[in-house]
């Protein structure tokens, strides 16, 4: 928004060439910032305002919203359902983030050591998995875990000798989240692995050679030489994964459509959606969203500061 008013202000004092450097960047920034201000900024402001209001169906249909101070926040924070949903989301996100980062890093390191052919094979595989839409992926995995005709149940029957046909993976919340975690991690690994691999290729090989001449083994070389080079990428990818996994929506929502008990498998993203959209309680929905952003900011604050310091 600042950018736009600045741009307009400068347009009026448009003097030829000499002034260009001042005007040009503002004009270049204007379209992006106008879009962001209108379509992200304004809804965010509304969300925050509504989180302090009694805002339900009546208000959606035109009644005046009433400010109730922290009413929505106390309501949410004293609701055991909220805490159950939050706990579930944090646990799921923790498992997914750790698995994604560890596997993604392992694959990235592996790719640097592979020959050209195998490296191409692996990156094509990753690209194919990455190209798969989250919704489609969830449907396919849902089919693989299908109760009656799923591949997994067939395999389990083959391997254990017990009859697994008819075993439902989605009805029990724990195995529901097991399936969800597989889908989320599978979908996230390509981005992480390829980004980290991109970072690893930037590490100068002379430095690594020098370290190995000094007698550093593989692990020490990774910790002391390679990692510092890619640390900023790792941190950014890590924060993005935490954010994305904590507010995961499409996979959980689609998996609930295939099977699974909604109340016992809601994560915070789905909960906000049901609260705001299905129940029309925009006030509490807004409050939950603000709380979620606060949590995410608290989790990443340290890393954001660290990143900023490294940027100097």
């Amino acid at each position, binding site marked *: 928004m600042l950018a736009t008013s600045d741009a307009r202000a400068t347009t009026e004092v448009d003097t030829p060439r000499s002034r260009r450097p001042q005007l040009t960047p503002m004009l270049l920034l204007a379209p992006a910032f106008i*879009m962001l201000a209108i379509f992200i900024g304004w809804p965010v402001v509304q969300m925050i305002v509504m989180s302090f209001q009694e805002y339900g169906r009546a208000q959606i249909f035109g009644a005046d919203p009433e400010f109730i101070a922290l009413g929505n926040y106390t309501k949410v924070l004293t609701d055991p359902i909220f805490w159950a949903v939050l706990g579930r989301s944090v646990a799921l996100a923790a498992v997914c983030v750790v698995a994604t980062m560890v596997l993604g890093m392992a694959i990235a390191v592996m790719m640097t050591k592979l020959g050209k052919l195998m490296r191409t094979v692996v990156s094509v595989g*990753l690209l*194919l998995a990455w190209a798969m839409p989250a919704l489609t992926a969830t449907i396919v995995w849902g*089919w693989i875990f299908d109760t009656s*005709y799923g591949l997994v149940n067939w395999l389990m029957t083959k391997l254990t000798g017990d009859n697994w046909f008819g075993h439902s993976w989605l009805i029990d919340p724990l195995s529901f989240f097991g399936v969800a975690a597989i889908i989320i991690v599978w979908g996230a690994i390509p981005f992480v692995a390829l980004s980290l691999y991109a970072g690893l290729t930037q590490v100068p090989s002379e430095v690594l050679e020098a370290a190995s001449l000094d007698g550093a083994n593989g692990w020490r070389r990774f910790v002391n030489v390679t990692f510092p080079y890619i640390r900023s990428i790792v941190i950014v990818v890590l924060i993005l994964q935490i954010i994305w996994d904590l507010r995961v929506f*499409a996979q959980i929502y*689609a998996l609930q459509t295939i099977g699974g008990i909604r109340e016992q498998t809601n994560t915070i993203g789905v909960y906000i*959606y049901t609260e*705001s959209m299905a129940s029309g309680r925009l006030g509490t929905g807004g409050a939950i969203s603000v709380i979620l952003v606060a949590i995410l900011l608290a989790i990443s604050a340290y890393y954001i500061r660290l990143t900023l310091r490294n940027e100097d």
Partner: protein
Amino acid sequence: MKGSLLSRSLLNIAAVIVFVCSVFPVYWMVNTSMLPGAKIKSTRPSFLPESLNFSNYATALGDGFIPAMWMSLAVTGLTLVTALVFAFMAALALSRFTFRSRKSLIVAVLVIQMVPAEALIISMFRLLDGWHLVNTVLGLSAVYIAMVLPFTIWTLRGFVQGVPADLEEAAQIDGCSKAGAFWRITFPLLAPGLVSTGIFAFIQAWNEFVFALVIMTREESQTLPIWLRSFLQATKATDWSVVMAGSTLMALPVVIFFLIVQGRMTSSMTSGAVKG
């Protein structure tokens, strides 16, 4: 070089495992999509398609795929082009002019990602409704553009910084105008950056589900994810082979897009997509 052959083979085996794990669901989707309806209800899975049976595709295609695909293509195309142009302009401003917004931009990217989109839907819906943009390509694209902009600006900025400004200055000394120097020297070098940024925007817009669900309320304006979802519900829910055919059809344009840009893609990812 003791044990090098062994570790090489272990490495290659690991690579094959990664490849199989990545690709298997994709393969299984295509494989299932070719099964005749009766075969799907079999407790013994068939690992290879017995025949190339495209009847499920015909069923899916006949059930509204084409209009939904045009809708998705229009929305994704508009999002891709506009987001790239706007992000490119902003990235230039942020890296070629004296500004100190690098840090705030990084923070802004992360903070915007934190806001749960699900909480913004109603406000966005009202905004679009007020401008008569509900159920329009323009409306949904506008939302998508705003959503992908922070990340695309940020990624592109890294690429623009990767091209040394000296190159442009040298061209200017040789008699190019500032703009001419930019278009002839810097822009071609930015192609990989535009590709990898474009991929991100493309995947986001093509796959987005929640906003499309709320903003595109009419049946004739639904995008592919919404079309696919309708297959999962109610009566069609059990027809897995048709659902898989639909899923394959939806994934196909993404694969085609990836194949087109694939050559540039790996090089662009290496040349610094996420330089921070």
